[in-house]
């Protein structure tokens, strides 16, 4: 018992001194679990997040836009791959993580349970959803777990690029024909509140936050990050001539920040619990692709085994 306490104390002191934790270091079991949960959730978000955007690749309205969107979704697949690898350093296999995603045990960002009926959503997602993700991820470049922090540095660079591209799509619409402006505004109306929900429950309702802050996995609270995002994004909307769909939104001189209306937490918890418009579609699509690919994965494995055996025979014959 005594040793255990001192190991945890030593760990806390190590983290407090701004050292990075590496895969082979001792760590509290709960730290490991928290990280696996968070990193795999992040990886799943990248992978499930491919779907709402892949939805528009075949219909992108210019060849340039098609290439940019394809490249973006490819980046997301790449991010998913790094993050699965980062989570694997903590002893959980990718197969296990994917099984947990498909069974509903593991979660992904609730934002991807909203549909993308409009081309404008390809802009809004880049601008708001990637914008919100960056707000969170810049913080995570300094997270205490080394492999996660390093993955975040690379991912953040690409995400900022995506956000600029998304903003460019919205700008073209906002400065375009009346129909295009309408498209941009309608899309903003749908995505604004779900984007704010991406930062998670408010601080007084966020059960995991306090411990994560102490371990320096997380360095800013949900509400702080949300406020920073709003303060940064509102002027961008104004610049585009778009209206944020919140009648209570108002600059507060005293706080030097925007006051904003009440988030519909009922909706947030319902979407997380599986009642969002696309929860079922997203998982069904993932499972379908996985099952339809089973024979291909089996073939690749069988071929690799045959090749290894042939190589072995060649070597022993030589």
């Amino acid at each position: 018992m005594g040793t255990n306490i001192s190991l945890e104390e030593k760990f806390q002191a190590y983290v407090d001194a701004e050292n990075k934790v590496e895969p082979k270091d001792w760590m509290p079991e709960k730290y490991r679990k928290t990280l696996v949960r968070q990193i795999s959730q992040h990886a799943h978000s990248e992978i499930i997040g491919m779907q709402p955007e892949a939805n528009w690749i075949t219909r992108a309205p210019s060849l340039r836009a098609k290439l940019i969107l394809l490249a973006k979704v490819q980046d997301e697949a790449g991010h998913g791959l790094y993050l699965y690898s980062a989570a694997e350093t903590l002893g959980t296999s990718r197969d296990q993580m994917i099984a947990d995603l498909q069974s509903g045990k593991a979660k992904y960002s609730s934002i991807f349970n909203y549909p993308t009926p409009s081309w404008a959503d390809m802009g809004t997602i880049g601008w708001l959803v990637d914008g919100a993700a960056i707000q969170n991820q810049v913080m995570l470049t300094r997270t205490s777990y080394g492999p996660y922090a390093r993955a975040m540095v690379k991912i953040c660079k690409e995400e900022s690029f995506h956000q600029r591209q998304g903003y460019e799509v919205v700008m073209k619409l906002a400065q375009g024909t009346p129909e295009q402006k309408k498209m941009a505004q309608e899309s903003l109306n749908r995505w604004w509140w779900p984007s704010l929900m991406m930062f998670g429950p408010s601080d007084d309702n966020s059960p995991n936050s306090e411990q994560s802050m102490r371990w320096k996995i997380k360095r800013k609270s949900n509400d702080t990050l949300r406020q920073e995002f709003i303060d940064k994004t509102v002027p961008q909307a104004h610049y585009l001539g778009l209206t944020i769909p919140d009648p209570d939104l108002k600059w507060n001189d005293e706080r030097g920040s925007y006051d904003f209306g009440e988030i519909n937490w009922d909706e947030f918890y319902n979407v997380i619990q599986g009642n969002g418009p696309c929860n079922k579609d997203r998982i069904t699509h993932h499972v379908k692709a996985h099952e339809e690919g089973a024979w291909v994965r089996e073939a690749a494995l069988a071929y690799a085994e045959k090749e290894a055996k042939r190589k072995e025979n060649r070597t022993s014959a030589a």
Partner: protein
Amino acid sequence: MGGGWLNGVKRDFTKEEALEEYLFFLADDALILGQQLSKWCSAGPVLEQDIAIINTALDHIGRARLLYQHLAEIKGGATTEDSLAYFRDHMDFRNALLVEQPNGHWGDSIVRSFFIDTFNFYLYDALRNCTYAPIAEIAEKSIKEIAYHAQWSAEWVVRLGDGTEESHGKVQKSIDDLWMWAGELFESAPVFEVLDPSFVAFPTLKSAWLNKVDEVLQMATLARPEDDAWAQTGGRYGIHSAHLGYILAEMQSLPRTYPDATW
């Protein structure tokens, strides 16, 4: 109809017209194949292959853009790469019928890619010596990625053919089913006679293609259908399968709904 037409299809071309036709052969193959492959995004058998196939789709669409941009330059006026991609109808597309065939399962898409990638490899390799500089430059720029595509799809044919009994059966069927769409790649077209021989005439690529296909299929323990089997043709003259209508309807929907918009 004048003597230059046969069964409603134009048969005699000026040099300028033939050049445009040739560029459309290349560009439309690249665009339609890229469009088809992009549908695999988020649906591949394993994440690494999702990334690989998206990358391949990117290459094809990127190459299509270069070719359309050059066509737009030649045509002048209001023509742009996007007006060529989004505002032509099926009868003006010149892609081979092979690339408009549905994705099917992974093996179907792989075999379709293997046939066209192998063709593209010999074609673009030879086009690096085209006397027409814009084509030679595009070929030079693209050959590395095309070589990679050909290697990637050939490796998958081998893996599936020499993998499990199930995968062997599936990919053999893909080959048998898609074979009748492959022959068109080597069909003679009147434009080849108008252009100088450095604009590679597609029939000249057939023996190299067939040798490579034989080599790969042998490694894959797969059988090749007869090379003189009946081939469906028409794509190079604008006579397409019903699939192309849906591909274009999907791809072109937004610019056609809002023709005054820029994106």
